[in-house]
């Protein structure tokens, strides 16, 4: 059985093509049933997200080319595209490469934003659809479960998803670098923008205890305050509120500086030197850059946030290199599992065969043994079985080892092939 994967993703095909190929849940189940015929394409699974459409299948070993053709044709008909049209956008991976590709996709190494967490859920969903459609069999079951394990390993062992890369989450990230934990912190919003609210939401989720909202129109302030269970203050009370705030997010539409160095100095005085983190996401800027000169006050404008993001992306890329190593070693492990799976059943069947032979012999010779008690009969049978097992066990072990490593070690080890010496 070979593993075959074809598909398009955001790197190989523009959205006009991807959207034509996309499957919804129903189309996916339907398509799988059409695709999997039990002869050439034995098992199938479709991963369809906004960034990729991929078909994974287990195909008979000797019909790989034919199988690949069928998968391509299947995509063509789905997208109602002329034959051969997809050729330049399509990638095709077989066996080891297909396994590696799937591992990379699920670990979010192949995503537009490396380390994004959604794709694993999407693969999980694709698998459950295949299970419902009855097109996930022996090979794909193993492969997909192994994939989940790899994705989990990558997530826990590397920092691929450790650093935030969205503006709204930066407040949390920077806050943590200053306050260690945001538990019990007070957040203040000056002006109400969508981004500022989203940032505040993240901060509250990270443990911030209190939200203060200052806005020019008090009605809006009240409204947001209600949303967060916080307090609304007028711009006249700014100084008082600033003294209480640990993290200040500023995003008003004002064309001038709303907060000046004097504000920051006054707040620091009242805060008895406790640090404050000012985040200015408005353009034009609303916080005077001179605020940065005040000790224990940290100011970040939109460009600074962007530069943390690019630094975080670099960190993620560094981590992605490590993730690739994990994927590589897991691919090798899976190849072994696969080899073993091919022979596993036949090894098991061999033992049954041996046992049948023993039982048949016993039946043939039974008459010559004369009348026996029940206990004696059981004893004879278990004696036979144990001889069969004892003899066959080392041989089968040897075979298993042979298939696991993919090579024979007989040449180097002149030991008794039956392994019965000791």
């Amino acid at each position, binding site marked *: 059985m070979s593993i075959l994967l074809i598909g398009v993703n955001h790197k190989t095909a523009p959205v006009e093509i991807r959207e034509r190929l996309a499957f919804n849940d129903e189309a996916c189940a339907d398509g799988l049933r059409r695709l999997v015929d039990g002869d050439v394409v034995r098992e199938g699974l479709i991963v369809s997200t906004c960034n990729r459409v991929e078909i994974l299948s287990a195909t008979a070993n000797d019909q790989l080319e034919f199988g690949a053709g069928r998968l391509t044709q299947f995509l063509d008909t789905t997208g109602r595209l002329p034959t051969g049209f997809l050729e330049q956008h399509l990638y095709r991976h077989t066996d080891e490469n297909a396994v590696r590709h799937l591992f990379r996709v699920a670990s979010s190494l192949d995503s537009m934003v490396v380390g994004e967490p959604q794709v694993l859920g999407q693969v999980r969903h694709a698998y459950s659809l295949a299970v419902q459609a009855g097109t996930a069999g022996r090979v794909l079951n193993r492969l997909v479960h192994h994939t989940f394990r790899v994705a989990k390993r990558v997530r826990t062992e590397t*920092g691929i998803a450790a*650093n935030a890369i969205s503006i709204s989450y930066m407040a949390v990230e*920077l806050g*943590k*670098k*200053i*306050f*260690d934990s945001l538990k019990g912190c007070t957040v203040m919003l000056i002006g109400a923008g969508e981004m500022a609210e989203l940032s505040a939401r993240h901060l509250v989720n990270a443990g911030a205890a209190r939200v203060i909202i200052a806005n020019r129109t008090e009605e809006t302030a009240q409204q947001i305050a209600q949303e967060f269970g916080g307090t609304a203050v007028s711009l006249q009370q700014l100084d008082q509120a600033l003294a209480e705030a640990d993290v200040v997010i500023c995003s008003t539409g004002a064309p001038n500086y709303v907060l000046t160095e004097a504000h920051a100095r006054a707040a620091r005085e009242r805060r*008895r*030197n*406790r*640090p404050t983190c000012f985040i200015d996401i408005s353009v034009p800027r609303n916080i005077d850059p001179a605020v*940065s000169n005040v*000790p*224990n006050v*940290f100011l*970040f404008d939109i460009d*600074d946030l962007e*530069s*943390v993001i690019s*630094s975080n992306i670099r*960190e993620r890329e560094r981590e992605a290199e490590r993730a690739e190593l994990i994927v590589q070693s897991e691919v090798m492990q899976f190849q072994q599992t696969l080899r073993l799976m091919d022979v596993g059943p036949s090894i098991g069947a061999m033992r049954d065969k041996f046992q049948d032979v023993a039982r048949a012999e016993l039946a043939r010779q039974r008459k010559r043994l004369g009348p026996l008690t029940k206990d004696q009969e059981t004893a004879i049978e278990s004696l036979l079985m144990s001889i069969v097992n004892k003899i066959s066990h080392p041989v089968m072990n040897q075979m298993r080892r042979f298939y696991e490593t993919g090579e024979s070690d007989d040449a180097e080890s002149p030991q008794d092939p039956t392994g019965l010496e000791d």
Partner: protein
Amino acid sequence: MRSLLLAVLAAYLIAAIHSILAFVNKRRSLQRVAQWSTLVGFILHTTALIADWVIDGHYPLFFPRETLSFLAWALVALYQVVLYRYRAQALGAFTMPLISVLTFIALIIGSGSGVTPAGFSTTWLFPIHTTLLIFAYAAFFIVFIASVMYLLQERELKLKTFGAIFHRLPSLTTVNELATAAGGVGLTLLTLGIVTGMFWSSIRTGRVWHNDPKEIFALLTWMLYFVLTVYRSTASWRGRRAAWLGVIGFALVLCTFFGARLLPGYHVFG
């Protein structure tokens, strides 16, 4: 006990290398290796010190070799407490190399020459006085490192460089708290050390003060850390300024530690 100390050095070196690698690569597995080898080294080191004490018959804190070894041991002890309490793993990358160097020097300067003056091995004040002070030095070193980390991280945040340091050093609050706590501990130990020293000296010679350079430096150090602690607790000096004082203060600690070496006086090394 040289072979045992050699094993200690090996463990500390492994810990130092892994701490640095863990710091650079941010690997938990490397950090685990570092922590375990630190612990193994610490246990061996403790054994070595006890063995020294039993075999040589005097408290192992008299000759330069012993002092350095003891100082390294005290640093490891404090480092482990900090690790447990603050989870500031980055500290290892700074302290473990120094600890290794101290152990290495203790190993190569060999066994001390001469014999212990009779007065030292009989009085119980000698071990208390010296142990308190060694731990005070170790605590001030922690203040120093925490202050350096604070200044580095603060610089990163102020200048918005967001380089490797930003991702690897603990938060400002953590290192600030660490420096405050270690400063308090150091000051307490220093006070007790000075008091026991005065008491011992008054028993020996009837005088509590000899205008000895080590004593003067110790007094200056005490004053500096007293000021630092007071300012920190009243919160008028927090963060950057306190951190600078923690760095500069350590120079004074070094003078105190090597005081008897630089200028002769009442104190012998140790």
